[in-house]
């Protein structure tokens, strides 16, 4: 083994930094899934009747489905009766009136995550809707946003205060019948984020939510719904971490984005759920359905994701390009180290005329990591002059990892132009040596080259996120060169 390989091995063995557990009383539903569980959740959340009905329909549909097995990831069967579907921190009063009222332990947890709410409120100008387990515990900057007419709140709150919006848009992009995990989520989702930007409003700040799975054996099933009305625009950031546990935990979220005429939504994710230990024990199963609908003409939806965590990641943030001249984008960095598996990519569905999509996917496999890009570009008959460009690059670090590329291209319109390119390579020995000859350590050289490899994607992230993503990549890569 050469020196570089050595240093990388040391790097790999670094522990997960965010693996602490908060000691907070939780109000939990009993284990298992039944109509009673769903009624329990709905009741706790004081939901309107239509929501309970919808949940039950989704549950009944879910019962008819089998868990999918078509992707290239492997995992033991999940016992859905062994999961706690509702877990909320017990609060001193009913709800916190301000940050001061929040359980100090909870705030410390956020501190450890590097997102002290107060600091963020004061310094970063970011409105944070923090989701701790299943209930939204603090929403900042609400007043400021309210002045613009922007609704930014927990899903439960939206269901109570804006039932007409929820009723109109929920499930309109990802139906409860969409797939196994979307059906499950629709039945049991406990909370999440709701955001509505009224016509013509440019959201004055980046909106952000940090999710965190804390209670043992609890699955997290959040649901996010973002609507940008005509001419509105919003940028939304999502970051995730979870504590270390030996058991696997399930995270099955649903995200729906709706962009009406001339609206723009930018959705960025940095996903750093616990990936399991280096032998593959524990870690999050991240099975997520994310889809955006460019419903209006000239609308634009852009997904940017940096996926470094989770034992298994399985998600395909997609865009339905329904409106004429609408634009869909997908920028992704997925890193798998140790025993992690990722099967991720996107779907671009061109329906409207002059629709355009861009896909840039960077996969990095290290250790025994398995990384697959799976993407669909579909141009329907009416999509005159549709354009797609896809670029999928894989970087392999070490000789026990694997990288796969599975693009699906379906074109039914002759005026379309679809281009796909993919490469697979490793870090060149000459590149490493060149950097080391300039005085960089092997570790820094690798990290620099990998960051360079991902640059096109990082460029798409909001500044603070890009910095975090780069750091995260360095940490996740530790010990992985061969």
């Amino acid at each position: 083994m050469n020196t570089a390989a050595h240093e990388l091995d040391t790097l790999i063995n670094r522990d997960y930094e965010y693996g602490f557990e908060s000691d907070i009383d939780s109000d939990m539903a009993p284990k298992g899934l039944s109509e009673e569980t769903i009624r329990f959740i709905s009741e706790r959340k004081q939901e309107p009747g239509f929501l309970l009905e919808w949940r039950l329909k989704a549950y009944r549909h879910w019962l008819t489905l089998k868990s999918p097995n078509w992707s290239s990831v492997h995992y033991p069967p999940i016992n859905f009766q062994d999961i706690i579907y509702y877990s909320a921190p017990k609060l001193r009063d009913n709800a916190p009136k301000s940050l001061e009222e929040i359980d100090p332990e909870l705030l410390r947890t956020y501190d450890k995550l590097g997102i002290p709410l107060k600091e963020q409120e004061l310094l970063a100008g970011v409105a944070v809707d923090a989701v701790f387990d299943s209930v939204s515990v603090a929403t900042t900057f609400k007043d400021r946003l309210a002045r613009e007419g922007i609704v930014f709140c927990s899903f439960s709150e939206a269901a109570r205060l804006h039932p007409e919006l929820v009723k109109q848009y929920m499930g309109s992009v990802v139906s409860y019948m969409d797939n196994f995990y979307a059906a499950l989520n629709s039945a049991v989702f406990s909370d999440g984020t709701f955001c509505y930007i009224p016509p013509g409003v440019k959201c004055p700040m980046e909106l952000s939510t940090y999710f965190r799975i804390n209670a043992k054996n609890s699955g997290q099933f959040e649901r996010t719904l973002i609507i940008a009305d005509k001419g509105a625009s919003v940028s939304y950031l999502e970051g995730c971490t979870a504590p270390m546990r030996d058991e696997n935990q399930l995270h099955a979220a649903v995200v729906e984005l709706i962009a009406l005429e001339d609206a723009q939504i930018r959705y960025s994710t940095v996903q750093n759920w616990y990936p399991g230990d280096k032998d593959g024990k524990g870690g999050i199963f991240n099975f997520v359905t994310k889809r955006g609908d460019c419903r209006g003409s000239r609308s634009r939806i852009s997904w940017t994701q940096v996926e470094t965590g989770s034992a298994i990641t399985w998600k395909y943030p997609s865009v339905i390009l329904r409106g004429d001249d609408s634009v869909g984008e997908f920028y992704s960095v997925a890193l798998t180290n140790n025993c992690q598996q990722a099967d991720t990519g996107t779907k671009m569905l061109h329906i409207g005329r002059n629709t355009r999509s861009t896909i840039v996917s960077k996969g990095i496999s290290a250790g025994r990591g398995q990384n697959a890009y799976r993407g669909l570009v579909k141009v329907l008959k009416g999509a005159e002059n549709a354009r797609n460009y896809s670029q999928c690059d894989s970087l392999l670090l070490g000789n026990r990892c694997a990288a796969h590329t599975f693009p699906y291209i379906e074109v039914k319109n002759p005026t379309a132009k679809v281009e796909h390119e993919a490469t697979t390579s490793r870090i060149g020995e000459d590149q490493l040596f060149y950097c080391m000859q300039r005085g960089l350590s092997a570790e820094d050289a690798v990290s620099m080259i990998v960051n360079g490899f991902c640059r096109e994607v990082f460029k798409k992230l909001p500044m603070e996120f890009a910095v975090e993503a780069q750091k995260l990549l360095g940490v996740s890569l530790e010990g992985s060169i061969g």
Partner: protein
Amino acid sequence: MLEIRNLNVSIGDKPILKGIDLHVKPGEIHAIMGPNGSGKSTLAQVLAGREGYTVTEGEILFENKNLLELAPELRAREGIFLAFQYPVEIPGVANIYLLKAAINARRKHQGLPELDAMDFLELTKEKLRLVGMDEALLYRPVNEGFSGGEKKRNEILQMALLEPKLALLDETDSGLDIDALKTVSEGVNALKNPDRAIILITHYQRLLDYIHPDRVHVLANGRIIRSGGPELALTLEERGYGWLETAEGIPA
């Protein structure tokens, strides 16, 4: 400063260098000349610590330290700089980023504080003028899409910034037109100083019209077969390598 004693190097089972002795003092400029395949580049690579070469015999001392024990990045931080014959392209990594990382790695090693962004930029701009390089190239990915001349200038720029004690210029003249050769040479000449040694590795004499060596060595078939003053290079230019090799009884 640099002491090479009986250096024998092979790649796999194939001996490339067969007993090199070389002594370089601070402030000196040495030229190592020789035909293709004589082992010139191997010598440069071994000095910089490239893997894939086996030192079967001999030693290299740099400021009385055993160079062969040092990892490549430590050699770099100790002050050895290699201007690559084929500068490597690194997609996505901005040139300026690599420069900054390299400078600060060196400074840290020397116990100096890291340069702040402003000082660094100022310094870089000053050195850019020295090598006649377009500032825009700083923000492009390292060597990616650079012309041959731009790549070589970039190497000299790095050298100017890193201020090595010993600079190895591996075929820096190759692929340059006469104007580029002039600017690159001027850059190198500006970096001459009494504490810095420079080893020029070249196939042709023409670089030596611009950078004047103190000593010239001819490398053939893994050995230094002749050493002399600057006049040796001129004789070589006139008569080719053939006469030397024949004279030494080595088939050309």
